[in-house]
């Protein structure tokens, strides 16, 4: 009887695959169902945003950076504005900082909801997706109320915010915060002790603490592996050190731990939002009082010559930023996020470089899927929460 011949099989997964969250391509070498090697190929979504920013004025960069990581738009613009404000050397009013904290935390909930929905759907829990997108709709409505734009509000600007909070903002956020913890319990009912979900995620896509550090995974993935690092605690910005919150960590480093960490993070974000909302007066100062950067109010533009000139200068030439470099990290939904900004003293950036947490997660993907089963590849890609717009930029 002839011997049974076995050979490895090379499978090209992606770039057009519904579970790769964009256009990620993996070249997998399989022995039966076991993954022997995996080579991620990226770049299909490269749009040259960093090159484009060099031709834009400082304030015009904000809509661009919001579109890099399209699930955490406000975190991106926040990180960019903090770096530019550091270069400008301006002090941001306390009310603006609290509003920014509130927006950043709402954005984190928003991003985690999309993650939970899509990840749940990929491992077979389709109803979770419907639940999560139902609550996300409320957050998008808040964005719409705030800026008239649901995904990319461009509301956080260099020097403060675009305009004051709209009427009804506090009520809308309060309504969301009142309802959301119960919804979180609902998601937990669906997944936390769900036998199928546990089988699909426990012990799957494990990354050790040492590897998480070596691959610079700063964020929920590292915290699920036991790295206790959160920019909000270690290098506080926007006065996060005056807020009461904890940083959830786990030790196993598998897909299930990442789920636990992100769910706990959403609860902490609700806590932070409540505290921030308490501190924000409904009306008040919304931008730094600096005529170089903040345009004058419209009623003055229509009646005063000086205000008209100032308005014209800001909108035609923008403002100049002193020469230098700055990098102010923030804790985005996917980990440490920041913009390394270099200015040559003109009204356009010399260089804008985003630190992409998704790129580093993609790099570590190989570590997490080699040796596992091909069916788990989808679960792992879902669990590391990559946004390909952030990977390729």
């Amino acid at each position: 009887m002839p011997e049974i011949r076995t050979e490895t099989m090379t499978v090209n997964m992606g770039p057009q695959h519904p579970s790769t969250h964009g256009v990620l391509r993996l070249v997998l070498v399989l022995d039966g169902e076991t993954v022997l090697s995996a080579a991620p190929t990226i770049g299909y979504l490269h749009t040259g945003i960093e090159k484009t920013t060099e031709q834009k004025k400082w304030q015009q960069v904000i809509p661009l950076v919001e579109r890099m990581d399209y699930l955490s738009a406000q975190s991106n613009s926040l990180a960019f504005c903090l770096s530019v404000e550091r270069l400008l050397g301006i002090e941001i009013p306390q009310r603006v900082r609290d509003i920014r904290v509130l927006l950043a935390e709402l954005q984190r909930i928003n991003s985690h909801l999309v993650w939970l929905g899509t990840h749940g759907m990929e491992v077979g829990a389709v109803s979770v997706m419907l639940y999560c997108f139902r609550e996300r709709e409320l957050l998008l409505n808040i964005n719409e109320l705030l800026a008239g734009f649901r995904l990319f509000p461009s509301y956080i600007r260099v020097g403060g915010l675009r305009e004051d909070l709209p009427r009804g903002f506090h009520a809308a956020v309060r309504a969301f915060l009142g309802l959301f913890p119960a919804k979180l319990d609902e998601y937990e009912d669906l997944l936390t002790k769900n036998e199928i979900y546990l089988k699909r995620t426990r012990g799957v896509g494990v990354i050790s603490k040492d590897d998480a550090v070596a691959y610079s995974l700063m964020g929920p993935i590292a915290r699920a592996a036991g790295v206790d690092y959160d920019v909000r605690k270690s290098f506080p910005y926007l006065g996060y050190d005056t807020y009461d919150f904890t940083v959830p960590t786990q030790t196993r480093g598998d897909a299930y731990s990442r789920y636990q960490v992100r769910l706990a993070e959403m609860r902490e974000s609700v806590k932070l939002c409540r505290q921030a909302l308490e501190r924000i007066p409904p009306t008040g100062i919304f931008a730094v009082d600096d005529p170089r950067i903040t345009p004058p109010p419209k009623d003055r533009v229509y009646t005063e010559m000086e205000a008209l000139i100032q308005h014209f200068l800001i909108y035609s030439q923008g403002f100049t930023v002193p020469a230098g470099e700055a990098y102010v990290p923030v804790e985005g939904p996917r980990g440490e996020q920041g913009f390394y900004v270099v200015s040559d003293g003109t009204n356009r950036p010399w260089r804008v470089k985003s630190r992409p947490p998704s790129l580093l997660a993609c790099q570590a993907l190989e570590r997490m899927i080699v040796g596992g089963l091909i069916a788990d590849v989808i679960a792992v890609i879902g669990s590391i929460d990559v946004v390909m717009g952030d990977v390729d930029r």
Partner: protein
Amino acid sequence: MDPNTLIASLQDAVPAAQLERVPSVDLQTTMYVSRDELPAVARVLRDRSDLAFTFLAEVTAVDFWPREPRFELVYILVSIAQRLRLRVKVRLHGADAHVATVSGVWPAANWLEREVWDLFGIAFDGHPDPRRLLMPEDWEGYPLRKDYPVQIRMTPRVSEPLQVTEEEFRASVTKDRLTRS
């Protein structure tokens, strides 16, 4: 740790490093390192327990064309244990734009350095996988260099589909079958 003591103790550990501290506005200690001593400095930064810069947050470059040395490589490091952030920079001349890789010290540098090679054309000696990362493999030029043309319409390149005669196809299939059996 005080930035000046940090740099002084580093200078003691690697005497040839020519460290040069520059002021920074964003509370991250910034220093220049000579190109040849970068790997040695990197190893000390990661391994000494009073420094413990275990995280390499970012590797990037800035092109200051037409000034020379035109490139500045930027490494952003984080020490969780000591709650320190450090920015290490290396100056590179345009005609001699290469530097030793640090992917042996921080594995995360692998893709980050590939991105710098891809977009700036700075070579990393000893890199385990020196390919482009974001741009197509047959791309010409390095897009983030300041002398790279912007807003110039290039004629699209068309590649002809592979032309194979029936005999060549049969020969290829037979050859493939022979090598497999």
